[in-house]
């Protein structure tokens, strides 16, 4: 009995224990289930986060891609602009657009047509990604279509995206150009033919955005600008070329005339020179014989003959003088007379000349004054020739100045040269004759000249001498008031 009680008790305890342990195990399992549940929950949460990440990442990637595309496009545009703006030849502009530029803009086909108004047809200027046959077909299709001309007229860019509402037109353009996406933009130079730039791609994935349309519009504008520049340049160049040609022709004509003149002038000089030589010999004999006769060694001469002989003597002197002047002019012109230049005191020279002319000055009671400053006194010239210059000019001044007139000689420095002026209060020279007086045998037609003899060679000789010194001579004169003869001479260095 006891034992059975024990057994029952034992069984009871055992079952209790089992129940307790079962409960514990159950609790533990529930705890684990809870943990698993929690884990699953956090995994799901993590997955939700993953979704957020993926969506954000997708957006980011797409933005990045667009950005990359834009940057690449801008780079390509920059390269293209540089390529087309660095040439001024119209054909070169189009040749410089390369397939690689287009590729960077994400297109593989392109062409440019310019409208020839007279022929009523497009001219193909450039094509990429099309064969010759294909481009010919496209051109003949576009010639008939007003759409493209309207683009030029309205200065409007269209693209496969901008034509969303005009499916007919879009389909037609796609068909003609054999592309899936495209942009067409007008090329509008201010000068000459205008046209269109077409770019397109066969790719189905390409979506033309506003950015693409803008880029192509900019490109078309630059193309227009480049064309305009090229055409303007061409025009300017042509004009310049014409001008150059004309100048060349004129120069040749002038050179020819000058050469002829030189030949004539040389002939003249030679002629004068030889004639003068030939004249001088008999003149010397005439003068010689006349002098001998005058001495009376060959017999006494009656006064009538003496008078005639004096005349012969005087006239032959004048003739010798004339011939000498002529010879000098000829010599200077032919360059055979060399100026022996030396440093000279201007005052000194003038005073020597005045000594020679003092008689005439006194006769006419001329008030003579010399205004030569200290710094304008030294000249670099041939002594005897310069003396001749002064003799000629001053004696002219005396000749044409009336009694109690005034003659002033002045000098001053001007720009590395010396300017010397001889002013008189004489009758003056009419303006129209002021240049001619320096020509050989020219004599102003006035009363004094009719009375006083002259060769008409003095001023011509003076002019030659001054020019042989690299100087210049001119006259300023007013009728009945006076004349000023001015000339320049190199200053002594």
């Amino acid at each position, binding site marked *: 009995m006891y034992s059975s009680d024990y057994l029952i008790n034992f069984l009871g305890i055992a079952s209790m224990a089992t129940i307790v342990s079962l409960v514990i195990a159950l609790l533990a399992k529930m705890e684990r289930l809870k943990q698993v549940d929690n884990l699953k929950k956090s995994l*799901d949460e993590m997955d939700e986060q993953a979704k957020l990440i993926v969506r954000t*990442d997708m957006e980011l990637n*797409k933005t990045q891609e667009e950005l990359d595309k834009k940057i690449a496009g801008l780079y390509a545009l920059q390269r293209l602009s540089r390529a087309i703006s660095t040439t001024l030849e119209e054909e070169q502009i189009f040749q410089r657009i390369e397939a690689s530029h287009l590729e960077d803009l994400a297109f593989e086909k392109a062409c440019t047509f310019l409208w020839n108004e007279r022929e009523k047809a497009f001219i193909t200027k450039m094509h990429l990604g099309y064969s010759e046959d294909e481009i010919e077909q496209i051109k003949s299709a576009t010639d008939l279509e007003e759409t493209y001309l309207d683009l030029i007229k309205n200065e409007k860019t269209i693209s496969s995206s901008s034509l969303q509402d005009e499916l007919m037109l879009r389909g037609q353009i796609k068909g003609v150009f054999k592309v899936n996406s495209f942009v067409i933009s007008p090329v509008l130079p201010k000068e000459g033919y205008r046209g269109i730039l077409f770019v397109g791609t066969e790719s189905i994935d390409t979506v033309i955005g506003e950015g693409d349309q803008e880029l192509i519009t900019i490109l078309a504008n630059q193309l227009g600008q480049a064309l305009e520049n090229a055409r303007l340049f061409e025009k300017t160049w042509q004009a310049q070329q014409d001008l150059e040609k004309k100048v060349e022709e004129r120069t040749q004509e002038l050179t020819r005339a000058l050469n002829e003149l030189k030949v004539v002038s040389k002939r003249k000089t030679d002629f004068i020179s030889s004639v003068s030589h030939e004249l001088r010999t008999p003149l010397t004999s005439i003068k010689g014989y006349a002098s001998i006769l005058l001495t009376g060694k060959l017999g006494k001469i009656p006064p009538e003959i003496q008078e005639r002989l004096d005349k012969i003597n005087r006239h032959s002197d004048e003739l010798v003088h004339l011939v000498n002047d002529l010879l000098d002019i000829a010599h200077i012109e032919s360059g055979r007379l060399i100026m022996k230049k030396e440093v000279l005191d201007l005052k000194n020279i003038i005073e020597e000349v005045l000594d020679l002319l003092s008689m005439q000055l006194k006769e006419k009671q001329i008030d003579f004054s010399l205004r030569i400053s200290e710094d304008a006194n030294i000249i670099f010239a041939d002594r005897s020739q310069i003396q001749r210059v002064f003799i000629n000019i001053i004696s002219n001044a005396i000749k044409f100045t009336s009694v109690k007139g005034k003659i002033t000689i002045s000098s001053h420095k001007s720009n590395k040269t010396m300017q010397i002026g001889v002013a008189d209060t004489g009758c003056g020279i009419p303006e129209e004759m002021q240049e001619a007086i320096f020509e050989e045998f020219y004599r102003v037609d006035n009363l004094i000249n009719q009375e006083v003899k002259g060769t008409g060679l003095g001023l011509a000789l003076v002019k030659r001498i001054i020019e042989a010194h690299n100087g210049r001579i001119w006259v300023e004169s007013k009728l009945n008031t006076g004349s000023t003869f001015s000339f320049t001479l190199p200053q002594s260095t």
Partner: protein
Amino acid sequence: MRERKKILKTISALSEIAALFRIFSAISMKMAGEMAIKIGMGLSTKRDSLKGTQEAVREARLNLQSQKIDLAVVFSSLDFAHVTVFRTINNLLGPVPLIGCSSLAIISNQGIFKHGLAIMLLSFSADIYFSTACVKEISVKPIADAGRELGEKLLYGFRGIRRDLSMIFSDGLISDGSSFITGLQEKLGMSFPLAGASASDNLAFKRTYLYFNEEVLSDAACGVLWGGKLNFGLGIKHGWKPLGKPHRVTKSTGNIVYEIDNAPAVNMYKEYLAYDLAKLRQELKHVSIFYPIGIYLAGEDEYLLRNILLIQDNGSLIFQGNVPQDSRIRLMIGTKESCLTATSQALNEAKDALLGRQLGCVFIFDSVSRYMLLGRQAKKELEIIKENLDKDTPIIGLYTYGEQAPLKALNYQGRTYFHNQTITILGIGG
């Protein structure tokens, strides 16, 4: 018992002697300045394909310091993929075995070029053997059979010679690249090292080209099998990281996945991206590249990636490469940075496998997905590779629609897989 010990001792002594001999011969070869392999690289980016070809071939011949040309490898952009180009090469080089394929862009020491042709001429020492082969009209036969056919052709004449490595190029538009590899492996050996690239076009996915001798082929594959004493190192990495919770492929055959977590496969993408079917189809190219699925492989550092090729109306997804039923998969996410890290990892793996031997040349099979993801930074990837190589190591590479290379985990015994989105770097010892 004692005799056995003796034999063992002799064997170990002999092997030591053999090892010593090997080292000695290696040293003597090095001292003599002889390379087991000579390389001549040529590149042209001319638009005129014939002039370009002539330029590239001339340059390659100049760079190859040998009269003997054994093999030519050519990668080119689509504008070079026509017969005249390869007739020209044949005219210039004579009947040299040639393999290669078309690509979106070509990779070389000089840079990455969207237009051009790169040719690598190889001249081997007498102890290196090789054979080339090609298989045509793949789509008319069971795909695994095509793989077997290529394997058999490659093996022809290779009896009794140690096989080292195979490099193959295949049409990038073959829908089930994995089965092709399986077929090939049945012939060459399951754990036989294989590096492969699927040809690409200009992202139009219209037609890709294979080059075999004078021929330009589509719907084909070609390759080379090396044997003898070729030293090489292979590295393959992608850099994509898993995101979100694990999923299970509950129904699939080959490269078609019908159900994930007992729901139509496409739902997974719809949920993650919050896109409807139309939007998902519109953005498929991006989604596929940026967020592929990763198949978990026990013991591996990285997941095996699969890009979506197509979304079918019944909600199933067709992938580029097979996805076994019951696989554990994750959604993967990649960044430019992780992508570039993977590049240097792959290169280091290839270099490590060569145990410090000098590199003769480097082949790069880089996924077009990476080219798209990296965008303007694609050049940076090449910079990383160049920085870690000797200055004159010739580099030739292409962008692929799929890469094939072995994983190195022990459980997989170096078995080759069909990959997506990776960079495969194959270094051949000099």
